[in-house]
């Protein structure tokens, strides 16, 4: 990695937003391939993810990391049209969403972010997602893992209903379901009949790694 490339990775990893954007702009202006710049961003985000795992970074750092990534993506992507290459290989697919009736998305967004930087292909259905929408999305996206998120206590039943709908549609077989959110624990997992629960984003990554052999 060249010195100017290293600058971008370090600035991203160290939460120096202005420097990161300036470094990315300089690389693109200097003719570096936009895909290369996005690769460097991924390298920077991997460091952010590791620091989060190690308890050095917290939610605000992930949010700022996401913002920087988005801003650099907006600079690089218009230049991508003619560039060679395709999407990065992934460890597998994860479908995620906050269950019906619940509008909370912070936990879900962190899990999505962490799965993404760890090489999983994640499709995020958003918040207040009806069971039928999960079922339709499973048919279309064919994920190996489905993640159900919820913060409110009403989510316990909504998770159970979603798991039931997935089963009724014959889509549970060969697929794992994990749940997470502020109140979720083993009792809620049993209530919802999910395969596992996670108390934080790293737990979700560990589960997906285990299940997909990544």
């Amino acid at each position, binding site marked *: 990695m060249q010195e100017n490339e290293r600058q971008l990775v370090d600035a991203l990893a160290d939460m120096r*937003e202005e420097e990161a954007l300036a470094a990315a702009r300089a690389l693109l202006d200097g003719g570096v391939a936009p895909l290369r710049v996005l690769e460097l961003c991924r390298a920077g985000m991997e460091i952010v993810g590791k620091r989060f795992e190690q308890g050095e970074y917290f939610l605000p750092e992930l949010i700022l990391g996401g913002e920087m990534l988005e801003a650099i993506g907006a600079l690089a992507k218009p230049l991508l049209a003619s560039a060679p290459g395709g999407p990065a290989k992934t460890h597998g697919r994860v479908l995620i969403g906050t269950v019906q009736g619940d509008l909370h998305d912070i936990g879900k967004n962190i899990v999505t972010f962490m799965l993404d930087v760890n090489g999983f292909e994640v499709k995020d259905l958003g918040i207040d997602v009806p069971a039928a929408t999960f079922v339709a999305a499973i048919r279309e996206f064919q994920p190996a893992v489905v993640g159900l998120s919820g913060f409110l206590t009403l989510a316990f039943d909504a998770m159970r209903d979603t798991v039931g709908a997935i089963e009724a549609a014959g889509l549970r077989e060969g697929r794992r379901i994990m749940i997470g959110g502020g109140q979720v624990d083993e009792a809620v997992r049993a209530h919802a009949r999910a395969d596992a629960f996670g108390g934080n984003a790293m737990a979700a990554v560990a589960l997906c790694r285990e299940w997909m052999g990544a």
Partner: protein
Amino acid sequence: MGASESTASARYEARRRRLLDQVALKETDRTPFVFATRFWAARHAGITFEQQMYDAEKSADALERALLLLEPDGYVQSLYIYGPTLSALDYRLMQWPGHGTDPNATFQYLDREYMPAQDYDAYLFDPTGYCLRHYLPRVAGAFEGLARMPDFPSLSEWRFVGALRAFGKPELRASLQRLLEVGEHAEAAAQRAAAFARKMAALGFPSAGGGFCKAPYDHISDFLRGSKGCMLDLFRNKDKLLEAIDKVAELLLRGVVEETRAGGTPYVFIPLHWGLDGFMSPQHFQTFYWPGLRKVLLRLIEHELVPVALWEGDCTSRLEHIGDIPRGKAVYWFEKTDLVRAKAVLGDTVCLRGNVPTSMLIAGTPQEVDEYCRMLITKVGKGGGFILDGAASIPDEARTENVLAMARSVHKYAP
């Protein structure tokens, strides 16, 4: 005074005293149990959550039934009686039963950016003017016309009189008209709440509710910047955020002392949203969260009020940093933080409250609840300074037999 009434008043006094003594870290005859919930009482009484918010009589009956069943040492009267007020206001910061959410689904705050970052300066220079003319019109329909309100501090001499034209404009007049109606609903709800408290006092149940306050960071996050905006401010607008925290602490404290005293209890509830483990680094917590919150706590304590801080989520890593407040003057209610550990770290400083797990109250058995309460009472209740409650009050979906097991445990087990 009849014999039964004197018994009720004796029970009232004993319960009230038991709570106050626990706050002062004194041992009492047994551990007290406080009943607080959002909509469990409604569910138990067979009314919808929407009815709890809109039908004052049914709502009061439901809560009374819950108190007679559980016989708690204190109760927190539901704030969720303000349905008509919120409707008249056309309030946009949350959705509530039947109004954005299902009639039997709890309310939800809408976490959005209501004040853009570039408005910090305007807010800091003149928070009242900013609120009136910019912020409030964004967050409720009834406030929209306030955008036309005159900028009073800028007026003098004949401009002063001329500016009163604003009150002749249809938008402002319509808003003021709507606010008169909002005020009537709010006043009626408050009167009914006071009447309910008197009735319950006569039945022997003291209120453990009272005033309401926030951590300054949470106020900025919940009501102004949104959680994402506020987290980005930790990096992008540090100085402005710190300045706002300082200012907001003063603003939040205005009126709380008088309001709380008028209610007749010393308790000031402070739900804490964004300072928990994982939501910010220890450095951010020490800089942006705790100093502002501590200022609020100390000021309330100076006025002989009892802050009841609900530390939501897991706050284990904060325990060592939140003990520098006067001894025996506040309640820390922990949701997921291990209370045995909290007792070891903070037991000599604050009264602890909590924390029968939400999932256990909903999906567990009465035996599990009983065992958990026994553990809390014997380990955390030892020596005083403990109030038994749910992890985050009694969840709406809790099984009645589980809540009963919790209520009865304080009579079964000695600290």
